[in-house]
């Protein structure tokens, strides 16, 4: 058993909100260890306290954070929580370093990459200017940045997200730390880049023999890279152990739920298990598989022909630069089925959705619904069709008007489309829909800020349902949600499709989710559809290079023994 380089004991952290209220208790007395030369994954959903705990190690809590006096963080024989500031500053960046989630904002925009790496070298290792620069070039090379001689003089904004994160890593390992804290380093990155960064961190961990504290919400990632796992929920550690123990014999219902409720690539149960299933029962749902697929005889409800959307930017003296976002996209949506649209950022998938809804003006192409080309209609004619095709956006915190009550949000579309004979009837329908999506009737009178992300998405779904649409576009609708909440919303969407025969266009970057939900899948890259096939087919026999690359980037997770049926 390796020695522990860091020991967290009874860590209790509260946040002062304002002068009157009780401080909010974010971390409630947790304890865990980080052995030498080990990767420890600290896993939890939003609000679990995982980031806060990690920040406390280096004393990087925000100004209103209070650590309880009985908490201890032991490193090298001393309690870091009681250390004086100069001592902490010696440790930061040298013995223990951090990389953050958003590399773009975590790097100083007015200094070059070289200057920022050099700063830590000169501070802790006493290197001179030229030496630090040379070492910087070496480090950039080690983290896989091409042309390091040139790139050392770049500014952060001149680099891509993935490269920026590599720079952060270079800065972090520059002084050969014993512990690297990685706070959700890949969450903001595309899935292909994510894999590269994870591989890089794993390689560096081995080569430099350092420990890594990896904070994430994604159990798939954890399975790939961690040695031990600590599972947190609401400021408490629910379970911890070796990765094998956690994945093969999870004890706590929450852990079991986390493991089970992510859609998997090899199975497709009729319903995704949610946390409640594990708390009330043992989580074994004994569900049959759901068959998905399309056949040529399916009635088509929506057909898109040669859709193009180009954005124009002003450039030069009088010129305009054309940025084609969607190039010649064509597909058919069978009635009652789900068409998945998968791609990374910049692929144009969201633009397709917005253009279908005429929230963007298409440059050319046709969208045929019941024989009529929606793109050719006037705004007035379009009104009649607006209620037939609806959209659920990605950001639950921005898609509901903060100044309207839920009731107002639900009644507004009914008023516009003259649904229901009077106010009384509309309000009744709103109450029914709230119940249908699993929210309490009191929600009618509340404001969006009083709800969680998952609940807000339900409200957004209810808003769409008020108009009884035929087609629903889900634009990354579950991407911003925690895994357990995601499962609930996906179940809801599926129930609604089963019950009302809705047709979905499901847009996402998450391949596992897309495969679970879709009958047919389109892969998009750089504005074009690269491949399109039934979902089982595309995962088993991907034909295009890009599709294969995407599939191989999905974290495999721990090699799981087959789950008991």
């Amino acid at each position: 058993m390796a020695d522990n380089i860091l020991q967290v004991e009874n860590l209790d952290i509260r946040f002062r909100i304002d002068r009157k209220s009780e401080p909010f208790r974010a971390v409630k007395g947790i304890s865990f260890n980080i052995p030498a030369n080990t990767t420890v994954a600290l896993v939890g959903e939003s609000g679990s306290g995982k980031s806060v705990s990690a920040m406390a190690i280096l004393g990087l809590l925000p100004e209103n954070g209070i650590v309880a006096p009985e908490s201890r963080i032991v490193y090298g024989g001393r309690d870091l929580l009681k250390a004086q500031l100069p001592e902490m500053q010696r440790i930061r960046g040298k013995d223990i370093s951090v990389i953050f989630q958003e590399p773009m904002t975590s790097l100083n925009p007015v200094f070059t990459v070289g200057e920022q790496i050099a700063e830590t070298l000169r501070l802790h290792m006493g290197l001179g200017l030229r030496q630090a620069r040379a070492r910087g070039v070496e480090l950039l090379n080690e983290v896989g940045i091409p042309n390091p001689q040139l790139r050392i003089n770049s500014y952060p904004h001149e680099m891509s997200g993935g490269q920026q994160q590599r720079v952060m890593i270079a800065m972090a390992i520059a002084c050969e730390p014993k512990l690297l804290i990685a706070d959700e380093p890949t969450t903001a990155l595309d899935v292909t880049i994510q894999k590269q960064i994870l591989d890089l961190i794993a390689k560096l961990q081995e080569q430099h023999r350092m420990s890594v504290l990896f904070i994430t919400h994604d159990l798939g990632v954890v399975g790939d890279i961690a040695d031990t796992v600590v599972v947190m929920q609401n400021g408490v550690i629910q379970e911890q152990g070796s990765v094998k123990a956690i994945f093969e014999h999870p004890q706590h219902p929450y852990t079991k739920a986390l493991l089970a409720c992510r859609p998997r690539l090899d199975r497709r149960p009729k319903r995704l298990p949610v946390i409640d299933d594990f708390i009330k029962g043992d989580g074994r749902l004994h569900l049959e598989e759901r068959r998905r697929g399309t056949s040529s005889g399916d009635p088509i409800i929506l057909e898109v022909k040669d859709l193009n959307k180009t954005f124009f930017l002003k450039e030069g003296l009088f010129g305009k630069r054309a940025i084609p976002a969607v190039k010649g996209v064509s597909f058919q949506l069978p009635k009652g089925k789900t068409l998945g649209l998968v791609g990374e950022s910049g692929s144009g998938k969201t633009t397709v959705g917005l253009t279908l809804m005429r929230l963007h003006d298409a440059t050319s192409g046709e969208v045929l619904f019941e024989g009529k080309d929606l793109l050719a209609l006037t705004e007035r004619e379009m009104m009649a069709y607006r209620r037939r095709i609806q959209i659920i956006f990605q950001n639950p915190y921005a898609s509901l008007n903060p100044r309207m009550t839920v009731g107002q949000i639900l009644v507004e579309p009914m008023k516009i489309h003259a649904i229901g004979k009077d106010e009384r009837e509309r309000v009744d329908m709103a109450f029914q829909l709230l119940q249908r999506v699993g929210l309490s009737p009191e929600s009618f009178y509340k404001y969006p800020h009083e709800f969680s992300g998952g609940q807000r998405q339900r409200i957004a779904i209810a808003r769409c349902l008020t108009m009884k649409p035929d087609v629903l576009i889900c634009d990354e609708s579950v991407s911003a949600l925690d895994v357990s909440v995601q499962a609930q919303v996906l179940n809801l969407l599926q129930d609604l499709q089963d019950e009302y025969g809705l047709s979905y266009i499901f847009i996402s970057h998450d391949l596992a989710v897309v495969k679970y939900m879709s009958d047919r899948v389109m892969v998009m890259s750089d504005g074009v559809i690269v491949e399109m096939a039934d979902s089982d087919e595309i995962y088993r026999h991907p034909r295009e290079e890009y599709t294969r690359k995407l599939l191989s980037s999905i974290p495999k997770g721990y090699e799981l023994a087959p789950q008991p049926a």
Partner: protein
Amino acid sequence: MTAYVIRRVWQMIPTIAGVILLIFILFNWVGGDPAQVLAGKISNPEQIANIRKQLGVDQPYWYQLWVFMQQVFTFDFGRSWSTNEEVSRILLTRVGPTLTIMIPVLLLETTLAVIFAIMVAYVRGTLTDRTIMIVCTVAMSISFLVYIIVFQWLFGFILGWFPVQGWSESFWKNLTTYAPLPIMLAVFVGLAPQLRLYRSFFLDEINQDYVRTARAKGVPEKKVMLKHVLKNAMIPILTNVGISLPGIFVGSFLLEVFFSIPGLGREIITAVNRSDFPVIKAVTVYLAVLTMVINLVVDVLYKYVDPRVSFK
């Protein structure tokens, strides 16, 4: 970059045209007949008739506009309606005294404000910080007039350290004898609002992610402020200075009036009192153009301050 400059100059044209139009509408249309305007201010009827002819008052408006535009582009606004001095000469001779006061004011105010703002931002949230902010708020609520009256009385009249009023021909004498009191006054009064503003810039930067990264690297707090935060905060600070640059040409007209400094600001006040339209029109149009030019220069210099800026 040349393409950028050319494009900007091209874009200035409609704005300049608009300014000319606005001034024309204001002074020629709303302002109306000089005979009525100057009634009671100038007793010589021949002079008034002359002025009317020059302006082309009896001609249709488009002719008057054409006359005005000619004036703008030939830098000849004619003569002052009250002193009959050439307007261009008036402007040129008055700019000197104004700048003698305002340039030192700008430099001192900005430097002091930045220094104090860093210090206050460093101790943010403490009693010192809050007290200083309240003091600034109160200081800003006292009218500039009160400050001038009190300062003149205290330093000029009671203590006798500086002359209460006056100006001379010699630049050096101005700078050392007549200018210090007004400069001191302007800096004293202008410090409070600048301090508040710059403090907010610093606080905005302190809350950014890159500051957390710097701390995570073990950079000492002072260095975080003076190296990381300062360089980023200089961007909005320089924007602010750039915006105030055109204003120094108008100067603080109140100071010039109280201290009898023959500057551009006082000239404008006098012109307003005497309804001396040519002077006001000229100053307005030229300062508008000057503002646009200064803005362009500042924007170009931006590239050296903020690496994210690129010219398209």
